[in-house]
Structures are given as C-alpha cells and as structure tokens.
C-alpha cells in the first residue's frame, strides 16, 4: 500500500452502513410516505456526506494532500490528483446565491407544496462551495414554510438538519435573521 493509499484508508470512511444497505431509492418511496419527496440516492463518493448529515454535521470533502475543498465529492483531487481525502466540518453558515420557485407541472409530492423554494447556498468558509437546498421556517417545517417574499440573494442562512420519513437526514436552511 502506498503512503497515499494508507492515508486514504485511514481517513476516508467506506460507504456508511446506514446508507449502503437500507436507504430507499428515489423510486422506492412507499405510497403514503409523509410528503413523498424524493430521497437522495447516494453514490460511493457522496455517501459520507449523507452519513455526516445523519449526525447533524455539514461536512465537505477535502484533499488530504493539498487541502483544497471539492464539491460534489469525487475520487481524485482536481488540483493535485491525490486520491487521499477526508471530510472537513463546515460552520453551516452561508448566503443565498440564487433561488427559484418551481410551479406545476411537478412531481405530485412537490406540487402539493405550492410556493416551495429551491435555493443555492454559498458557504461562508468557501463561497465557491455551493449547496442546493430549501429555506424553511424550522428544521422540520415544509419546503413552503417561508414566504417567497422573504427570499433574497445574499441573505445569510444557517444549516439545520431534517430527518425524512425514509430515515435519511438532509440539510435544510434557516434565515439567520428570520
């Protein structure tokens, strides 16, 4: 095993058991599931993100050699080609970079949430790392719980975590100044 590989073995979690076996795919949502929203279908590179989210931590993949963050996660660092990586914890603070208000035609579970938003958040520590998410009034509040008039590019937000009926935890975003 090379030095790089051993670093990787030590620092990169394998596919977390909480996700590798039992997480339903987006098409496996049982009829009658709470909102019937799509669940993330993690791949091998992305699985650690969701595993950390399940523990209430927002973490982004970081190169273990050159320290550059990268998102979405991938096997190799585009800056130095190292295969060694770990997951760096973020403060969870950021700003709204952009947003949309999707209207029908939509998948039924989303059409049932009129006025819902989808936002892109740029992270405070790394503005070029941006996460797609939803602005909500409380961690477990629905995706349309914040009025569209409150959405504004540049608004400071903070990450919270919501456990979905399928057992998957996803980040959500609250306004810093509600």
């Amino acid at each position, binding site marked *: 095993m090379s030095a790089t590989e051993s670093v990787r073995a030590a620092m990169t979690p394998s596919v977390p058991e909480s996700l590798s076996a039992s997480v339903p795919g*987006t098409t496996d949502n049982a009829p009658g599931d709470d909102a019937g929203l799509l669940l993330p*279908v993690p791949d091998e590179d992305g699985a650690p993100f969701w595993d950390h989210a399940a523990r209430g931590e927002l973490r982004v993949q970081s190169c273990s050699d050159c320290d550059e963050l990268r998102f979405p996660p991938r096997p190799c660092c585009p800056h130095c080609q190292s295969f060694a990586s770990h997951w760096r914890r973020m403060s969870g603070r950021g700003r709204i970079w952009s947003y949309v208000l999707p209207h029908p035609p939509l998948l039924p579970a989303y059409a049932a949430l009129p006025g819902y938003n989808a936002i892109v958040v740029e992270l405070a520590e790394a503005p070029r790392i*941006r996460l*797609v998410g939803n602005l909500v009034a409380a961690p477990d509040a629905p995706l349309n719980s914040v009025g569209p008039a409150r959405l504004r590019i540049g608004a400071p937000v903070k990450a919270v975590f919501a456990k979905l009926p399928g057992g998957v935890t996803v980040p959500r975003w609250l306004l810093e100044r509600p």
Partner: protein
Amino acid sequence: MGATLKDATAIAGIGQTPFAKHLPESEKTLACRAIVAALDDAGIAPSEVDAFASYTMEETDEVEIAKAIGAGDVTHFSKVGYGGGGSCATVAHLAAAVATGQASVGVAWRSRKRGSGPRPWKNTRVQLPTPGQWTRPFGLLRPADEIGLLARRYMHEYGATRDHLFNVALACRNRANQNPAAIMYERPLTREMYMTARWISEPLCLFDNCLETDGALACVVVSAERARDCRQRPVYVHSAAQGLPAQHHGMVNYWNDDPLTGPAWTAARHLWKGADLGPQDVDVAQIYDAFTPLIPLSLEGYGFCGRGEGAAFTEGGALEIGGRLPLNTGGGGLSEAYVHGFNLITEGVKQLRGTSTAQVPDAATCLVTAGEGVPTSALLLRS
C-alpha cells in the same frame, strides 16, 4: 498541422417531417422520412450513405435506420451526449469523418416524440445518482428549475430583467409567425401575454420555455467537392467545435468558480480559432433556446458582446430581422419546434441557401449553436 476542417465539407441536403404536439407515426418512421427527404434534397442515393451521427438520447439507432433506408456499408457512426448540447456535434463528427476519409456521405438526424411522449424529468428511475443526489431531493426537478437558478443569479448580477427575456421570446415568436411549418405560426405573442403568463419556475414563465414537439429532421454531409455537384447550393462547414469547460457540472453548474461562463465560452474559443471570420461577420444566428436565458448567456459566450452585456444586447429589436443579429429565424425551439436544436441547423442551411421564410438579405455566414448550460457544440456555416 494536419488536415483542417475549414470548408472541407458541406451540408448538401436537409429534410424534416411536419412538427406537431402529436404525430401518429413512430420515431423510427419519422426518422426515416426525414433522412430520405434530406437525401432526396441533396440528390444522393441512400445506398451511398456510409456514415451516421446522432444524439445519445436518440431512440432510433444506426442499425435500424440503415437497413430501413437502404444504406450501403457504413464505416463511421457516432452518438453525442448531453441532450441538446450534442446537436451541432453530430454534423461536426460527420464533417471530421468525411474530411479525413473515414466516410463519404454522412447523415445526421434527430427524431423525437417529445410532444406526445413522456417528460424525461418525470422518470425518477433513470436519474443519475450524481448529481441528482445533490439537487432533486430539494425539489430542483426539471431543466427549467436548474436553468432558472442560473437565470436568477444572472439577473441579479447584471441587472437583466424579464423584458430582456421577453425580447428573446418575442423575436422567436415573430419568426415563427412567418414560418408555416412552425407550431406557433398563427399564434402571435404580446408583452402583456408574456408578463401575465403562468410561472414554470420563477423567474421563468411559460414563454421562457421551449415547446414540446413531435418531429424529426436530418441533414446530409459530404465533401465540399461533392457538394458542388449536388442539387442544392452547398452550405459549407467553415468551423466546428465542442465545449466541455474545466470543472463544468452539466446543467446544474453551481459548483465552479464562475457558473455564468458556461460551455459556450469554451466552444466559442475553438470555433473562432478555426475560422477566418469573427462574431462581427455573422449575418444571422441560430442559438439554442430551450430557455430564453440561454440566449444572453450564449451571446456573451460566442463573443457578440461582453460579459454581462447579453441581456442589453437584446434591446432595440437587435434580434429581429433588420436588427444587429437576427435570431432563430424559423422560430427556434421556443416557437417553431423543440427537436433538441436540430431545426436550428436546418434553418441555418435555409438562410445560406436564401430560402428561409424569414430570409436575412444576402446572408452568407450563420452561427448555429447547441444547448448552452450542458457540454455543447457549435457550427459556423457559410455559403
């Protein structure tokens, strides 16, 4: 320096089916009709066809098409990925094959029942795990939502308004109103209709979105020398390019340093490098218009104006006939038909033959682009 693509090949024939919300025939039948019509337009026998190119999303394949139309032995076939980003690359691949002697008569085609068939985004089973896991659970479901996010940011950064997007929608609709083959031939658009239309993904309304169409198109690519002996005036492939920028993420391009400089910028650098002409020499443009914001983004990328100036470029009737850059003169994906941009290629050919229903006087150079916001491609055609 090896062989150059410049003017080595030409589009010698074009063909299309009617466009409609619903056509009764299958995609395979429609594809064959468009291809046979294109070969007839060129005056080339199907048995001479030895190359094919299409999109990876094309449901009809070379084996089925070749045996149906009666093609000969085929020595080059390719499919290009990334949906509408592949349109111009189908012609580019054939041009490269013909220019380097891999084949002599190439057919590019696209047949799609998008009007009466399913919406791709509704099938959650086929979504890719990456990057879908980062977007779809949050309700970013459709291409309109994905581009809507970039559009909102673009409007915020540069002061672009809905009126700028309306300028794009209106120019396409006005040209469709001149084109009897266009879905929107008899349906004029007004500013009031636009401003009061229902939202699809705010800030994008109904008229910022392309049509959903059944139809098929094809074109025939041969050497420049051969084209001069064909039935129609040759339309030369002066330059061609594909573009996949460094650290690009597809339509959800939110994860690089500068999401608003998309694949158009990459394709454009290569396109102009291989050309004797520049943006100032383009008489008419067919720019991929699945969504209106792709036009200002593409105008910037292909060098018709500076960064952030694409919206302002659309002012004062610039995109209309007689304007600075007449746009999508058949009506485009917004108002003629949405067949993954292939109708933009055939319309470019019509302009350079002088046979468009909205002819730009003496048009000699036409830019055709494929989908911006995904790995893309472009052609610079000249007469």
